């Protein structure tokens, strides 16, 4: 499969990828390396992993990172309560302590968390490690180890080797600088807001019923809005929401009903300051330009 094939496959599954992204994804699949995606919120980084899972017809295992994420929540944990009950139950059976220990530290008592689960699948899953920059640096270092060897050692049990190597997709949006070591292990792509044609293609793909003229207006408006000085720029998801909202309101032309347009902007502008930054006149000007 070449990267252009991959690109058209992605498009058929509903994801319009840029050349950069399609090539990065292609290489990451070919070379078996993790793919690191950076970019603003709402440009479709997470969606890449979801689409890839759909395309490969495999499971998507997702690990959402947050501050304070530790190995117990990401890799494995012993089911302590169950172990305790098992010990209590064994007290009447008069089994030796070695037997009990063997029993309670077996697979049955292991709670698998995303990373362990991902390397034990029959078919290679897509492992999405979302917002890696939110996790602590210690976790990043641990992740490096897992991603390079694809094995996890559990002291009480054994070292678990990967049955299949998952396709790893990491996303980050710059909450913290990632280490160079992690960056160098990965194939990198920076995902930017789509340009006009790409966004139009996305809108048509996701919302096939939409009228061509309105679609053009919507995309033009959102593209113009991103150039304004906003705290949070509307992402692709917001565009799609807004398109759905407009068709729900029965609006066929942005210029036709200023009040409804202004009201529907709640789909695009998500903070108080941004709402204030785009008063009705500005919205009208943008709509006029987009038409």
């Amino acid at each position, binding site marked *: 499969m070449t990267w252009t094939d991959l690109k058209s496959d992605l498009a058929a599954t509903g994801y319009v990828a840029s050349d950069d992204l399609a090539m990065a994804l292609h290489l990451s699949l070919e070379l078996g390396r993790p793919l690191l995606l950076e970019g603003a919120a709402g440009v479709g980084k997470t969606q890449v992993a979801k689409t890839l899972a759909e395309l490969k017809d495999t499971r998507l295992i997702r690990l959402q990172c947050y501050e304070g994420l530790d190995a117990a929540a990401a890799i494995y944990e012993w089911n302590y309560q169950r172990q305790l009950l098992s010990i209590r139950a064994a007290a009447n059976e008069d089994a030796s302590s070695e037997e009990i220990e063997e029993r309670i530290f077996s697979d049955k008592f292991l709670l698998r968390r995303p990373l362990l689960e991902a390397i034990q699948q029959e078919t290679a899953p897509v492992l999405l490690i979302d917002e890696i920059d939110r996790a602590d640096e210690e976790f990043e270092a641990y992740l490096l180890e897992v991603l390079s060897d694809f094995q996890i050692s559990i002291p009480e049990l054994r070292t678990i080797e990967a049955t299949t190597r998952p396709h790893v997709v990491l996303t980050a949006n710059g909450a913290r600088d*990632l280490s160079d070591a992690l960056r160098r292990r990965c194939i990198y792509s*920076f995902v930017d807001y789509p340009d006009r044609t790409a966004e139009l293609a996305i809108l048509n793909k996701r919302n096939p019923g939409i009228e061509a003229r309105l679609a053009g207006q919507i995309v033009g408006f959102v593209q113009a809005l991103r150039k304004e000085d906003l705290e949070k720029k509307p992402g692709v998801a917001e565009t799609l929401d807004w398109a759905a909202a407009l068709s729900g309101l029965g609006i066929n032309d942005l210029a036709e009903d200023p009040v409804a347009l202004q009201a529907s902007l709640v789909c695009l502008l998500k903070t108080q300051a941004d709402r204030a930054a785009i008063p009705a006149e500005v919205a009208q000007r943008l709509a006029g330009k987009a038409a």
Partner: protein
Amino acid sequence: MPATRFPARAGGTAERMADFMAHLRANGLPVGPPETEIALKAFTSIRAWDTTEARLALKAICAGDADRFARFDDLFDAFWLNGGRERQGFATREECRTKHRVPTFGPGVDRTARSGERGALDQPDGGDDSGGAEQSGEGRLVASRLRNIEKVDLRELMMPEDLKRAERVAERFGKTIRDRRSRRRKAARRGAQLDLRRIARTSVSAGGEPIRLLKRRRPDRPVHLVALLDVSGSMTVYARVFLAFLKGLMSADQRTDAYLFHTRLVPISDALRDNDSLRAVNRLSLLADGFGGGTRIGANLTQFNAQYAAQRVNGRSVVVILSDGYDSDPPGVIAAALQRLKKRGCRIVWLNPLKGWKDYEPVAAGMAAALPHIDLFAPANTLEDLAALEPQLQRL
């Protein structure tokens, strides 16, 4: 489309690729043999003779962050499609930037600098990088760009991106000084230790079985920063960078308090906390009326003690004073004010931009009087100095 010209000596793709990596490395991208290897492997799974494909593939492999990602196309063109030129683009841009950074000498500090040079005494004052300004590097390697900026005296840092860097250094500074753990342990949802006392208590209802494991951890006891910035005439050249520094401290911890002083003391925490940087600047300039005038450190510290210290300063505070110590009040006033401030149990850090100059002696009467009451007296005339403070702050 221009064809790639292979020099006669090139042995093949592998060697050319290694050359390309060397080219990237010379332009500041951290790539090496592993990247060469992946790139060669990648070329087997794409149509490597197509320039676009090769470009996209190499970009995905070699560009590690957004900045390099944006720059990569130029570097690619320069190497593969250049026709023999080397190191264009990035290197020249860098030169331009250095040229802009002509030192702007201010009256007060200038004198000190010159006298130091003319005296030609080569006894450095304290650290090895003290004469930072003398080495302000023009002819340095492009790859060592970060270091270069750090060595330049703060007065030359007037470019917006440098100010941003100052903010980042400050953020790190703020975090180091702030992150403190208590020695005690408190109950918590997650933690390294078991809370045996609570486990015993809750296990009573389960017939003595410790079904729920409760944890303890050492709670954070954040240090509270109070920054006092001198913006008198002798300090104006540093003022912008230090303001950026304060803004950085602010974004590291919103509870930080900041004050400006010249002949009066002005609280500026609210203005700096403003998310809208333009509005923040406007508010600041309204407040900073008197910027660049005379200094009355002693009187201002006394006022700070009387007016703000009672609410703002306690045993968990670190008071950072950014000043050169040239005071028009009698030195006894500073000493008395600092002594009184010290009684609140806080730590006092004095960052003096002059201390970084060669042969600096705290001869200014105010500074000499202040020294006995200060926990840490450190230079602050290069960003590197500020960054180097981290370990010392940790010990405070």
